[in-house]
């Protein structure tokens, strides 16, 4: 495939077009991408290992911090696994509250995504609008949980806070406002020519590829794969809620946009139903400190797709193994396929369209020689030289000539 016209361009791990540390090596022929490879892992924090050295309840808070957006998703998935091993029957009211926070989290995540997508295609008005509206749901989350993110709502055995009637009223008021705004976004997404033209046929992932590459969440659903853990493997209160699994057969970024805005409407419907049907009763059951030996696989439909947790216990107060597979790791494989034979200019929106979350994905860097003892400060110039050397050694890309030319302005 390689010929002399091919140019290799490294993107990242720090790059203005990317919102998180990830690195792509793109091979270009003219404006077209002929090959691409992705490298992730820059946010690896050793969380799985850290979980083995902490108690279950400490782990719950650590796991909630895997991701700042789907924090409730991870915490719930973990709590479900531990509760299953311990054989706990969670009170219904707690299950309803878990679903309520879960759907509010989805609303905030999808609105955030819509803004980012607008930004990536130069439609910053959409970013400003959606992020303004997103504040409505952030305020509600803060009202219910005390926090805008990392809600701390879960505990092993139930939830920590109740929803009062006056809070429920505020939620309903907010949902009315958000629903009206979302109808406007649906109108934009389905009628605004610029959006339709810019996103249609971009980042194509066929249904067959979506299945064979293991895509999950809105990425899969926009390729016609009707998979949703809430429906397929119901947890929390989803077995009793009435909602549709939104799919699209467009198989492109446009389809992913439509799926997400329509999912917002389903979330509003569910939030109203939860508040109407939420049974009275206790919020928690008592959970033992030591969890009997066992194992459980737990799944959760996070805003980005299936979140998979596996927990193995050994009868002590600390787990033997905690495994987390966040949805982005399942979807990142599909990105190379979506970029194939596409224009370079489509790259940012194609990547954004899986709604990547690399903090989630790279959960697990353990910092050796941490603390002040062996730490050292690396000056900027040295880092600069190191990065140039690194690219030369690992990617075969030599910037030295260019650097020499600009040495004065770079001050190296």
């Amino acid at each position, binding site marked *: 495939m390689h010929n002399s016209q091919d140019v290799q361009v490294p993107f990242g791990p720090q790059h203005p077009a990317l919102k998180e540390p990830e690195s792509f090596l793109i091979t270009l022929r003219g404006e077209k991408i002929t090959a691409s490879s992705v490298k992730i*892992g*820059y946010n690896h924090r050793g969380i799985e290992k850290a979980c083995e050295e902490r108690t279950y309840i400490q782990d719950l808070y650590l796991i909630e911090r895997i991701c700042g957006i789907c924090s409730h998703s991870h915490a719930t998935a973990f709590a479900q696994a531990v509760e299953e091993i311990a054989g706990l029957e969670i009170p219904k009211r707690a299950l309803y509250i878990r679903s309520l926070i879960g759907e509010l989290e989805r609303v905030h995540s999808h609105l955030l995504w819509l803004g980012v997508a607008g930004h990536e295609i130069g439609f910053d008005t959409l970013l400003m609008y959606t992020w303004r509206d997103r504040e409505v749901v952030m305020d509600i989350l803060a009202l219910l949980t005390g926090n805008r993110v990392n809600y701390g709502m879960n505990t092993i055995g139930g939830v920590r806070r109740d929803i009062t009637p006056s809070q429920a009223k505020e939620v309903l008021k907010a949902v009315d406002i958000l629903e009206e705004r979302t109808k406007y976004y649906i109108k934009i997404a389905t009628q605004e020519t610029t959006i339709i033209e810019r996103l249609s046929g971009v980042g194509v992932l066929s249904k067959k590829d979506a299945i064979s*590459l293991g895509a999950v969440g809105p990425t899969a659903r926009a390729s016609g794969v009707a998979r949703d853990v809430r429906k397929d*493997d119901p947890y929390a209160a989803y077995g009793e809620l009435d909602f549709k699994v939104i799919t699209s057969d467009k198989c492109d970024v446009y389809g992913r946009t439509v799926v997400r805005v329509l999912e917002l409407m389903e979330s509003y419907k569910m939030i109203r139903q939860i508040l109407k049907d939420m049974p009275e009763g206790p919020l928690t059951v008592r959970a033992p400190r030591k969890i009997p030996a066992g194992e459980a696989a737990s799944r959760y439909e996070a805003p980005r797709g299936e979140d998979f947790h*596996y927990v193995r216990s050994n009868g002590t107060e600390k787990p033997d193994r905690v495994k987390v597979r966040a949805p982005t790791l399942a979807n990142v494989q599909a990105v190379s396929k979506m970029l194939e034979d596409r224009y370079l200019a489509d790259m940012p929106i194609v990547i954004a369209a899986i709604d990547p979350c690399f903090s989630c994905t*790279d959960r697990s860097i353990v910092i050796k*020689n941490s*603390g002040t003892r*062996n730490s050292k400060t690396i000056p900027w110039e040295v880092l600069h030289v190191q990065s140039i050397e690194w690219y030369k050694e690992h990617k075969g890309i030599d910037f030295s000539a260019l650097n020499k030319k600009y040495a004065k302005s770079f001050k190296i």
Partner: protein
Amino acid sequence: MSAEESIKQELENKFPFFKDAVVIKRQRRIFADVPQERFFDVFNYLVRDMQFSHLCTITGMDEGETFGVIYHLSRDGVVVFSLRIHISHEAPKIKTVTGYFLEADAYERELEDLLGIKVEGLASGQRYPLPDNWPKDDHPLRKDWKLKSEVDHA
């Protein structure tokens, strides 16, 4: 008969050695241990004949004497079948399943980096998730692995 029971039955009929190995933990959750030499027989049957077409992830763990590797498969996103093998701790080696699932690439690189399990047949490529300058023989998810600073303080 429930879907889980019919899966168990079908597997036991097909693979006599599987008798009593398939455990239905609860609705939609099945676990089974399989000897490493029979792994691909069962895995192939689950994926090709029983339509377990989604690999949720692969979990590796240090079990002391052995390493455990669990392949979490799901059918139509509904039933999750966790198929486990135990492999030697001295020379941990498995064969890749990327021929079945391309997305297994990242999961198998995690096994190589974090536990030091050699995955035969895995295409050459970049490591994941540890940094490029991380020592090749240092695997943090092994039970005897401690933070360097902890060792220093001990």
